[in-house]
C-alpha cells in the first residue's frame, strides 16, 4: 500500500507494492484537471491528469522518450496531449517534450509541470521554473539539483543503465520512460508491447530495452505515489493518436484529395512527407516542387483540370504564394492551402509557434482577392477543417487557407476516431449538361457561382484568366465588368458570413466576460473558461472557425452583454484584436504575446481573474 508517512504528498521509500489499486482512490478536484491538490495535506489521492516534461539536448533521446511515453499513454487508454519545442538545428541545442495524460478528456498541454525529467544540467536550469509547487524531478546522475528540492528529486542512472542493460547509450530513452512510469504508477505493459512490436525479429534487442525500462522503473519507483495517475476508464469508442498535420492530411484524403504539391518547410513538411507515402495508395499524386510558387501554381493547374488539390506551407511559403492567391481568386479556381504558422518575421523562429499570419492570410496579395480563411481549434478539428475547406473551395470556387501553427501542427493528441461516414463531398458545378453555345465560364448567377468547364468536357471550353474579364472569360476592363465581377467574386462567400461556417462556442451565450480567439489557443482558453465558470464568473468563449469572411454579426451577438472582451493571441501586434475592433466596432482587451510558446490554461486564467480583481 501507499506509504502514509509522506511529506507534502511525497511517498518516500519503496513501499509501493499495491500500486495498481490506485484506481479506486478519490480524485482531487480543483484547478486544472486536478493537477494541484487542495485536499488534506499528505493524503494520497491519484490525479486525473499528470504533466510530464522531458528536457535535454536535442539528439540525446528526449524526443524519442516523449514519443514512447505518448504512445504508451494512448495505448494504455489515457487521453493525451503533447507539446514540444526544439531548436532549428538538427543536432544540438536544448529541446523539450511535454506529455500530459489524463483519464478524462484534456484540452491543453498544461503548464505546471508535475514531473520534470532532466537529461542534463541545462535542462534543469531552463525548466525548473515550470515545476509546480509539488512537482517532482528525475535527473541523470551528475546533474546538480539544489538541496531544497532534494526531497522530491531522484537521480536515475540513465546513461549507466542504458549502457549496462540496454546495450547502448541509445537505450537512455527506455530508462527515462521506465523511471517516469515508476513515479506516476503507470503500468509498463503498453511500453513493453511497443518494444516487442518494434523489435519483433530481434529478441535480444527487445530484451535489452525491456531490461533498461524496468531498471529505470525501479529507480523512479522510489518517488512513487503522490503523482500517481487515476487508472483510465475502459472505453468502447475508437480513439486515434495523431498530430494536427496528420489530421489535416487524413481529412484531405477523406475529402477526396487527388493532387498535393509542396516544398519542405518547418513545421509543415510532414504533411508533404506523409502524403508522399500515402496519397499514391488512393491513386492520387504528391509532388515535391522547386518552390512554393510552383507548388501553388501546379495545384491551380491540377484543380483547373478537375482535381481536388492542396498545398501546405508555413509563413515564408505563403508569402511566395501571394500572387497566386490573387490568380486563384480572380480565375475562380478552388484550392486548399495549409499554413502551419511559425514565428516571424522573415525566417524568424522556424520551430516556434506563432499566430502571426492572420492578416496575411486575410489580406495578403494585391487587388482584393477573395478567399476563405479557416482556423481549426484542435487536432480533431484539423481533420474536419480539411474536409470543410475542400467543400468551401469547391462550392465557392475560391482558395481556402487553413491556419494552424507549430504548436497545433506538431502536437500529438488522442482524439475520437473521426467518423468518415459523416464526410460529405461538395460536387463542383461544371459545364456538364450545358450546351456549348450557352456556356459562360464566369456567368452571373443567383449565388454568383458559375459552372466550371473541366478540360475533357466538350461544352465547357474557356480561358481561365487572372486578367479582368467578362462572363465568357474574355478580357474586359470597363467599369461595369470590373465592378460586376468584383461583386460576384465576393458575393459568393455570403453564405459563410450568414452562418454556414460552424463556429466554436463554449460557456455562456452572452457572457459578461467574453473571450474571442482563434485556432490553437482554444484548448487552454477552454480549460480556463471552465475553471472561471466553476468559480462563478459569467464567462464564455467564441472561436470563429472561419475568420474570412469574418462572422461580424455572431461576434456582436456574443459580446452584447459583455463588460470585457478579451482577445488572447500569439503574435506581437494583436491582429485578431484589430480585426474584431475594426469589423465589429467594439472595444476589446487585446492580449497578444509572442514568446514562441503557446498560452497555457493558467496564463488565460490569470488574464481573466487577475484583471477581475484589479478592475
Amino acid at each position, binding site marked *: 500500500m501507499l506509504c502514509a508517512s509522506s511529506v507534502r504528498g511525497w511517498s518516500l521509500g519503496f513501499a509501493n507494492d499495491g500500486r495498481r489499486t490506485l484506481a479506486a482512490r478519490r480524485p482531487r478536484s480543483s484547478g486544472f484537471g486536478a493537477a494541484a491538490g487542495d485536499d488534506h495535506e499528505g493524503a494520497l489521492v491519484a490525479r486525473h491528469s499528470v504533466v510530464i516534461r522531458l528536457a535535454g539536448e536535442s539528439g540525446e533521446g528526449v*524526443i524519442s522518450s516523449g514519443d514512447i511515453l505518448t504512445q504508451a499513454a494512448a495505448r494504455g*487508454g489515457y487521453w493525451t496531449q503533447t507539446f514540444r519545442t526544439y531548436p532549428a538545428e538538427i543536432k544540438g541545442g536544448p529541446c523539450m517534450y511535454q506529455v500530459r495524460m489524463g483519464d478524462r478528456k484534456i484540452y491543453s498541454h498544461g503548464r505546471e509541470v508535475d514531473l520534470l525529467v532532466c537529461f542534463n544540467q541545462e535542462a534543469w536550469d531552463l525548466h525548473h521554473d515550470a515545476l509546480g509547487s509539488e512537482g517532482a524531478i528525475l535527473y541523470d546522475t551528475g546533474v546538480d539539483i539544489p538541496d531544497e528540492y532534494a526531497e522530491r528529486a531522484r537521480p536515475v542512472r540513465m546513461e549507466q543503465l542504458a549502457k549496462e542493460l540496454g*546495450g547502448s547509450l541509445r537505450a537512455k530513452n527506455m530508462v527515462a520512460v521506465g523511471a517516469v512510469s515508476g513515479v506516476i504508477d503507470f503500468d509498463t505493459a503498453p511500453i513493453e508491447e511497443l518494444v516487442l512490436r518494434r523489435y519483433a525479429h530481434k529478441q535480444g*534487442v527487445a530484451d535489452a530495452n525491456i531490461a533498461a525500462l524496468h531498471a529505470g522503473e525501479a529507480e523512479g519507483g522510489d518517488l512513487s505515489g503522490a503523482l500517481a495517475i487515476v487508472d483510465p476508464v475502459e472505453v468502447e469508442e475508437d480513439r486515434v*493518436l495523431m498530430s494536427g498535420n496528420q489530421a489535416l492530411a487524413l481529412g484531405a484524403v477523406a475529402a477526396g484529395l487527388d493532387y498535393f504539391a509542396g516544398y519542405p518547410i518547418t513545421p509543415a513538411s510532414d504533411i508533404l512527407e506523409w502524403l508522399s507515402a500515402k496519397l499514391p*495508395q*488512393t491513386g492520387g499524386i504528391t509532388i515535391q516542387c522547386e518552390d512554393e510558387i510552383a507548388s501553388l501554381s501546379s495545384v491551380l*493547374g491540377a484543380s483547373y483540370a478537375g482535381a481536388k488539390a492542396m498545398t501546405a506551407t508555413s509563413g515564408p511559403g505563403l508569402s511566395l504564394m501571394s500572387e497566386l492567391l490573387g490568380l486563384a481568386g480572380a480565375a475562380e479556381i478552388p484550392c486548399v492551402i495549409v499554413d502551419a504558422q511559425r514565428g516571424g518575421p522573415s525566417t524568424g523562429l522556424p520551430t516556434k509557434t506563432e499566430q502571426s499570419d492572420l492578416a496575411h492570410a486575410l489580406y495578403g496579395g494585391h487587388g482584393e482577392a477573395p478567399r476563405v480563411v479557416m482556423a481549426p481549434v484542435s487536432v480533431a478539428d484539423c481533420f474536419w477543417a480539411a474536409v470543410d475547406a475542400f467543400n468551401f473551395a469547391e462550392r465557392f470556387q475560391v482558395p481556402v487557407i487553413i491556419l494552424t501553427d507549430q504548436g497545433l501542427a506538431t502536437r500529438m493528441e488522442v482524439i475520437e476516431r473521426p467518423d*468518415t461516414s459523416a464526410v460529405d463531398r461538395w460536387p463542383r458545378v461544371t459545364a456538364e449538361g450545358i450546351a456549348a453555345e450557352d456556356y459562360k465560364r464566369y456567368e452571373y448567377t443567383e449565388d454568383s457561382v458559375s459552372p466550371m468547364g473541366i478540360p475533357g468536357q466538350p461544352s465547357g471550353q474557356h*480561358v481561365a484568366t487572372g486578367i479582368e474579364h467578362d462572363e465568357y472569360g474574355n478580357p474586359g476592363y470597363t467599369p461595369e465588368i470590373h465592378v460586376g465581377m468584383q461583386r460576384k467574386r465576393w458575393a459568393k462567400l455570403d453564405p459563410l458570413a450568414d452562418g454556414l461556417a460552424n463556429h466554436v462556442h463554449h460557456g455562456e451565450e452572452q457572457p459578461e466576460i467574453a473571450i474571442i480567439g482563434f485556432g490553437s489557443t482554444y484548448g487552454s482558453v477552454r480549460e480556463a473558461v471552465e475553471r472561471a465558470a466553476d468559480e462563478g464568473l459569467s464567462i464564455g468563449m467564441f472561436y470563429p472557425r472561419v475568420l474570412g469572411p469574418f462572422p461580424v454579426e455572431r461576434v456582436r451577438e456574443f459580446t452584447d452583454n459583455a463588460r470585457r472582451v478579451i482577445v488572447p493571441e500569439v503574435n506581437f501586434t494583436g491582429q485578431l484584436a484589430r480585426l474584431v475592433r475594426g469589423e465589429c466596432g467594439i472595444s476589446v482587451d487585446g492580449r497578444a504575446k509572442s514568446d514562441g510558446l503557446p498560452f497555457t490554461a493558467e496564463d488565460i486564467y490569470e488574464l481573466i481573474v487577475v484583471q477581475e480583481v484589479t478592475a
Partner: protein
Amino acid sequence: MSVETPKPKDYKSDLKPIWCPGCGDFGVLASLYRAFAELELDPAKTVIVSGIGCSSRLPGFVKTYGFHTLHGRPLPVAMGVKLANPELTVIAVGGDGDGFAIGIGHFPHAARRNIDITYLVMDNEIYGLTKGQVSPTSAVDHKAPTTPWGNLETPINTLAFAVACSASFVARGASFNTKALTELIVQGVEHPGFSFIDALSPCVVFHNTQDEWKNLVTDVAPDHDVADRTQAFDLALRGGFSLGVVYRERRPTLNERYAQLLGAAKTSDVDAMLDAFTAREGVAMGGPAAS
C-alpha cells in the same frame, strides 16, 4: 468537332488577336492552328497554358481550353494540368521574359521531370507588353529604355540551356517560317516528354529584327545527329539561328513514372489509413530507439 479532318481555321476562336500588325506572334499562332489540325487535336482535350506578356495572350485566340496564368508561371501550372489528367494535350506558351527572366526557375525542373508538355516560347529578345525593355535574351549592347547606353549583360543561350537542363526535345523555329514551325510543333506535341521550342518571333514595334533574322537563319544541317547530346550542345553554342530539331531523347515521362508507381503501390483508403493511428495499437512515431 466533325468527323472530317479538322482545318486550321476550326481552331480559331471568336476573339481577334490584339497584337500589333506584323507582330511575329501571328506567324506562331498560324503555325499552331495548322499543327493542331495536322495532329487532329480534340479541342476539348487540349489545354494551352500561358504566362503574361503580348505572346501570353495566345490562348484566347485558340478554340481549346486555356489558362492565362501569371507572369512566369505557365510551366508549373501546365505540370499540374498534365499530372491531374494525363489524357490532355498540354501546351505552355509565353515570351522570353516570361520564360527566361521571371519564370526561368521553373524551366530546369519541368525539363528534368520530363513532363509531357510542349513549351513554345515566342522569343523577340525584348519585353513587348511593357514597351521594349531588355530581356534575358537581348544582345549585348542592345539599346532599350532600361539600357540607354546599351545592354551590359550576356544573353542566355536558350537552346544550350535547354540541352543542359535535360530537356528531351529541343528545337528552334521562326514565326516567319510557318511551314517549318508547324512541323516542329507537330513533332514537339508528338514527342513524349518535355518539348522546348524556341520560336523567333520579332516584335515589330519595339525591336524589329524581322529582316535581320530572315537573313541569318539557316536550316539545321541534315547530318546533325539529334540523338547526340554533344552535337546538340555544339550546334546550340555555335549561335542560335539554325532552325530545326537540335536534340531529341526518349526517356520516361513523369506521368509514365508516376503510373508505374501507382501500379506498384498497394491500394488503401482513409479508413485503412486511420487504422494505423489507433491509439491502442501504438502508432508509427519515432518509436523506441534501437540499441
